[in-house]
Every structure is written in structure tokens, then in C-alpha cells.
């Protein structure tokens, strides 16, 4: 198990940090979050063309960098830190990982190069309006016919669903239940019978959509009715990556709170000299460092395909949920009234913390999943 980043990984991190400091200042975030799609096509091409982020964990044979989840974790951690407005998590993490886990060789060769190059923006549509993140909650049906399938039902909370070209969709054989009968499908944005409705998101930097399927033609991805295992794996890996993204944001908040406290005076003293402020900052540091350790461990465990991997992914996501939100609340509090204003940047991260808290499942849900493994 890797507990320390290599020099190459540290170099990747510092390149990314500089790049996102340049390309994703909060003025850019604020501009993009007011747009409907929420991201900029030129920025998206820049990610691929200028810093070669195409397909971090996609094998080189499919046009990727052939790296692993530790590197992908670094990328999303830095994106979370800079609150980069991009379909990266939807396309390069969720959809790409689903294809890597589920698709056959032909399908990989068909989809991955275009995903790695950024030509196709894809996303994963699996949760439904019931808001469940487990496969038991999937109600969408897939009826086979003529070598293809027809999908009926509604997907919700689809990340960048209103701007993606391609959907990876989880559906089940009519009459099946639980983890039985599940298959993954690909559906093009322009498929007849598909209605895409943007949702008003509390976090304007992360766009969500609802997708209504009425007899939409879809192509099978991977094995028929064999999606349970690859999907579970995809979800666990995505949770590990989301945890990384979240600790990136939490660390940035923590640093901004410290910076603010070190500049402002009240009652003739730097507010950073008040003991309650010092203790709160110490607690924040502890919490963020612990959540980082969990996220890093989960990423390394994903690469090692460690036996405890799904459990530690749940652990990392639960820790990140609690820590990111708590750090955001503390950061607002440390800023005082200023921290509650629109012009102060803290609320941008607060809202990301809030949406990330429940995206892919809240802390209690992940803890329950985790304990099912540890206690087994």
C-alpha cells in the first residue's frame, strides 16, 4: 500500500495547482456557475490539450495516460480545491470508470479514446427520483428487442446530465429485483424518447439533470444482466475519488480561514491570537488531515484492488462528507458576517460541501455499508 506520493505524483499535483490557479480563479467559477451548462468548452479542451489530462486512468492502448486512481485522485483533489467547473467528474471519473469496469474490448475501443480525448462528454445515470444510491433503488426497465434494448423510467441527480453527449445508464430486466437483472447501457443525447430536464441545484457549480426515458433505444454495455459487480466497483471507486475531490475543497477552506484569521484584527488583536480561534483551527487541521489520509488510502486501495477496498471507499466518503461540511461551517463562522455574504467566496465551497455531502450517498449510508464489511 502506498502511503507517500512519489516525486512524479507530487510534480503532477504542483502542475495542476498552478494550472487551476490560473484558469479557475473564483471569478471564472462565478461566471460559469451562472451559465446553464456550467462549464466552458474551451476550458475543457484546455484540460486535454494543454495539460494532457485525457484519460488519467485509461490504459495507453485506449489513448489514456495509463495511470491509476492515486493520480486520478490527485487530479480531482486539485479540481475540488479550485472548484473547477468542468464535466471531468461526470465524464472522466464516473462514465470512464464504468466503461473500464463493465465494457468488453470492442466497446472500450469504441468509447474510451473519445472520452480520453475529451471529444465525447459522458456521464453516468443511475440514481432515480427516489434518491437511493444502491442498486436496489433502480426501477428503470430495459426490454430487449432486435439486438438493442428499450429503456423506460426516470433517472435523476445525473451529474452534468444536461450537457453530456453520452449517457451510461443502469437499468434492469423487467420483473427483476435487487442486484439481479441489472445491465448497463449507452444512450446518445439525441436518442428519441429521451427528455433531459436541468434541475435547480443548491450548488450552482455542479449541474444536475433529470432524464426521462420513454422507450428509448439503448445499446448494451458489457454483459447482459451482469452489471451488478462492475457497477458496485464503479460506485466504490467513484466514492474514493469524490472523497479526494472533497478533501481538496476542505483543505482550501481551512487555509482560507487561517489566512483570514491571520489578517483581521478585532479588539486590537489579530483574531488568530484568540485561543478559541487557535483551537478551532487546530481541530480543523486534525479533521482535514484525517479525511485526507482516508481519501489517499482509499485511492491507493483502489489501485491495489485491496481486499478492504469497498469498505475503505465508504469510510473515506463518510469522513469527507462530515469533514468538508464541518470545515465549511467553521470557515463561514471564522469569517463572521463577511463569510455569509455572496461576494465572499466561502459559500461557493460551502455549497459544494453541502451537495457533495449527499451525492453518492450520505455519511450514515456509507458507514452502514462500511460496517457491513468490517463486521462480516
Amino acid at each position, binding site marked *: 500500500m502506498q502511503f507517500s506520493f512519489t516525486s512524479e505524483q507530487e510534480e503532477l499535483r504542483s502542475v495542476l495547482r498552478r494550472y487551476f490557479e490560473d484558469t479557475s480563479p473564483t471569478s471564472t467559477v462565478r461566471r460559469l456557475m451562472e451559465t446553464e451548462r456550467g462549464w466552458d468548452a474551451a476550458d475543457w479542451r484546455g484540460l486535454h490539450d494543454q495539460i494532457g489530462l485525457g484519460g488519467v486512468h485509461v490504459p495507453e492502448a485506449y489513448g489514456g495516460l495509463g495511470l491509476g486512481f492515486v493520480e486520478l485522485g490527485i487530479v480531482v483533489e486539485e479540481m475540488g480545491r479550485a472548484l473547477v467547473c468542468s464535466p471531468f467528474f461526470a465524464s472522466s471519473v464516473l462514465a470512464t470508470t464504468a466503461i473500464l469496469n463493465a465494457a468488453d474490448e470492442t466497446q472500450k475501443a469504441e468509447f474510451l479514446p473519445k472520452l480520453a480525448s475529451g471529444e465525447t462528454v459522458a456521464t453516468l445515470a443511475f440514481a432515480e427520483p427516489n434518491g437511493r444510491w444502491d442498486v436496489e433503488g433502480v426501477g428503470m426497465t430495459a426490454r430487449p428487442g432486435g439486438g438493442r434494448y428499450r429503456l423506460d423510467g426516470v433517472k435523476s441527480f445525473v451529474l452534468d446530465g444536461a450537457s453530456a453527449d453520452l449517457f451510461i445508464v443502469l437499468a434492469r430486466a423487467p420483473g427483476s429485483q435487487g442486484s439481479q437483472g441489472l445491465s448497463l447501457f449507452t444512450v446518445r443525447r439525441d436518442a428519441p424518447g429521451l427528455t433531459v430536464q436541468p434541475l435547480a441545484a443548491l*450548488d450552482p457549480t455542479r449541474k444536475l439533470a433529470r432524464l426521462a426515458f420513454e422507450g428509448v433505444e439503448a445499446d448494451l454495455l458489457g454483459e447482459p444482466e451482469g452489471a451488478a459487480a462492475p457497477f458496485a466497483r464503479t460506485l466504490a471507486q467513484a466514492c474514493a475519488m469524490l472523497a479526494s475531490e472533497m478533501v481538496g475543497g476542505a483543505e482550501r477552506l481551512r487555509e482560507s480561514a487561517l489566512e483570514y484569521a491571520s489578517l483581521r*484584527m478585532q479588539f486590537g488583536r489579530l483574531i488568530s491570537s484568540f485561543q478559541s480561534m487557535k483551537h478551532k483551527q487546530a481541530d480543523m487541521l486534525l479533521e482535514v488531515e484525517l479525511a485526507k489520509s482516508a481519501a489517499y488510502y482509499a485511492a491507493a486501495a483502489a489501485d491495489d484492488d485491496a481486499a478492504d477496498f469497498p469498505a475503505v471507499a465508504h469510510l473515506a466518503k463518510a469522513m469527507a462528507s462530515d469533514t468538508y461540511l464541518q470545515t465549511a461551517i467553521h470557515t463561514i463562522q471564522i469569517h463572521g458576517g463577511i463569510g455569509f455574504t455572496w461576494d465572499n467566496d466561502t459559500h461557493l465551497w460551502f*455549497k459544494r460541501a453541502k*451537495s457533495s455531502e449527499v451525492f453518492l450517498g450520505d455519511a450514515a449510508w456509507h458507514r452502514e455499508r462500511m460496517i457491513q464489511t468490517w463486521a462480516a
Partner: protein
Amino acid sequence: MSTTSEEALRAEVRSWLEANWDPERELVAWRNLLIDAGWGAPTWPNRWYGRDLSPELAQVVDQEIRRVGAVGVARAGPRSLAQAVLLAHGSDGQKEQFLRRSLTGEDTWCQLFSEPGSGSDPAGATTRADFRDGRWVVSGQKLWTTSAHHADWGLLLARTDWDKLKHQGLSYFLIDMRQPGVEVQPLRQMNGHASFNQVFFTDAEVAADHLVGERGGGWAVATTTLMHERRGFDSFGAGAGPTDVRPGRTHAQASAEAATALEPYVWYPQRTGRVDLVLEGARASGKLDDPVVRQEIAKLLSLAKSVEWTARRARAAQAAGRPPGPEGSLGKLAASLIARAAARVHTQIAGADAMLTGADGPLEGLIAEILVSTPAISIAGGTDEIQRNIIAERVLRMPKEPSPDLDRPFRDVPRSVAT
């Protein structure tokens, strides 16, 4: 007059209202009638529109006015602070100029105390007022100013002497908000509402006779304002919207006035966390069957109930004439705990829906507004940290922190660089 019996008073008010109340009058004209009769502010001195009545007897007047559904004078919001300050510290000329127009609602007021960098410490004000050519010239920046965008006059705390100690170099002014050199900018909050303004002064002017109290005596006047504000805090935030509109021109004008005054506060109920919505929300989402969520709901309800009982205990002790116990000082801090716990529980109940706002969100966006509003409660009106300091020092009599801002001329007190 103060020996008036309750029945006699009630009869007098009743007959006066029968003779005078007409819901089709102009609001200002009606209020002037009330003021002239002494029923607008019956606890005020005879000389200033009042009748020197005790608060108990004044309630009789209010009851009768409410009973016939008449409109009262304007006594809410920052204008009530102006009234309190003018009564306590104003010169006769100031009272003459401002009191009546404040009661009729012709003048609206705002309070200009807080600044960037001294939100918790109004005595640290650095807005300056310099006496030049027979008038005061004001420059600086104020923050967290409710209603400044429609206020006619402001209650201004500004520094007039930089070589004195922090609390001794402040003076208190009445400033015309409708003049060049006063720029009001709305301050949008993270929940999208704009309840406050920032106000920039650039060589704005204050007439010499609009200084309240002595030069350098501003902190004492400000203390009156702050005490009055603290007392009014609860009722202020609680009024969530304009009252029912009754027929008649007077009511229509009063409702419009109230709607303007209350507009900044429409989201205030949400910052409390809305514990009242929890059980029904959990039942609707099915989370009421989840033992883990049930525990969190139970903790929240226990906390909210205990806080409510603590407040009732404090009121009962007060009513019984006992010395105030510690329980009265804790409500503000407790409200923060409740709001945070409630936001957590609402999130657990909403699950994935907690990501949605507006019409797509739970309860038509109300839950989302709660989630982005609760962070305010632990800050506004004194942060949790300040509340803990106050409890420790005033209730528990623990020593104050060392204060490097109290033992030297304000000029030498370390301050934040303006940003």
C-alpha cells in the same frame, strides 16, 4: 395622569377611537391624530406626544387600538432605536425635528454602527467625523446596515478624537442619508437575499446640532441603542411577514410600509433551522422509519424542547420576581445549536433531494433555503464566540481576556489594514 385607573383610561381611549378612527384616512394624517391625542406613544412624556403612562396602562391603550382594528404609530425596526435614543439623549431641537415624523412614518431610519473589521466590536469604529467650518464631515464605511437603501436618516457612530482611549473618542450623530457623499450598496448574502447594505461616506455632512449628547460621549449613547436593540431582538426577527391586510386606505398604506420594512427578514425563519418541519418531513420521506435518523430527530427535538422550557423557566422566574438566573443568557447560543442540528437533520431527511433548490427542491426550495441560511444564526447579533465570552464574563464572572485595545490611544491600537 399616571394615576388614571384602568377602566377610566379604557373608556377614554374607546370613546376617542369611536370618534376618530376611520380606515379611509391618510396614514400620516391618522397617525398625527393619534399622536396629538397622546395615544401614539402613551409611555412617552406629556411634553413629547405621550401621557407618561406606565407600561401596564399603555397596554390598555394598545388593546383598545387593536380591538377596533385601528392602525398604530410607526414604532418598529431601526426607527424604534432612533426614538429611544432621541428620548434619552436628544436635545429639544432634535426631538422637535424628528420624534413626530418618526412616529408618523414620514422619516425612516437606519443604524450605522458596524464596520468591516468591527462587526463584533462597534466601539472599534474607524469612520471619522471631523469638525470643519461649523459642521461635521464624515468619511468611512459602515456595514450590516438594514434598510439603509430606503432610510431618510441614520444613527451614526463615528470617531471624532483619535488620541483618546477607544471608547472615549466616539461621537453619535444623526445623519441625512439623502445627501451627496452617502452611497448605499446592497449586500447580497450567500442565500441570495440582500438584508443588509454597506454605506460609504465621502465627506458627507452633519449639521453641528445633529450631534447627540457630548462630543466624545458617543459610546454612552450607543449603549442605549444597543440595549434597546437587544431587547427588541426577538420580536423583530419573529415578525416574518406583513400582517393581514384589512380593508381601507389607512391599512393599505400601513401594510405597504410594513412590507418594505420586513422585506429584509423574509428568510429569517429559515435561519432558525425550522424544527417545526422535521417530523412531517421525515414522515413524508419515509426516513422516520430509520432508527439512525430517529435518534437524530430525537436529539434535535430534545434540544429544542429543553431550550423552550429554559426560556419559559427564565420568564416564570422573572414573573415571580426572582433575580435573573443564568438561564436567560443562553438562548442565543442555544439557537445556534438548534439551527445546526436542524440543518443536519433536514439533510438526512432530504437525502439526495438536499442537492436541489427552488421548485425542484423539497418543500418548493424551503429546505434548501434552510440549508444555506442556518450559518447566519451563529454570527448575526453576536457570534457564538462572543456569546460564550459574554456568558463566561457576565454570568460566570470569569476574568476578561487581556485587551491591548483598551490601554492606549485609539490611534495606536493595532487594526486591520483596510481591504
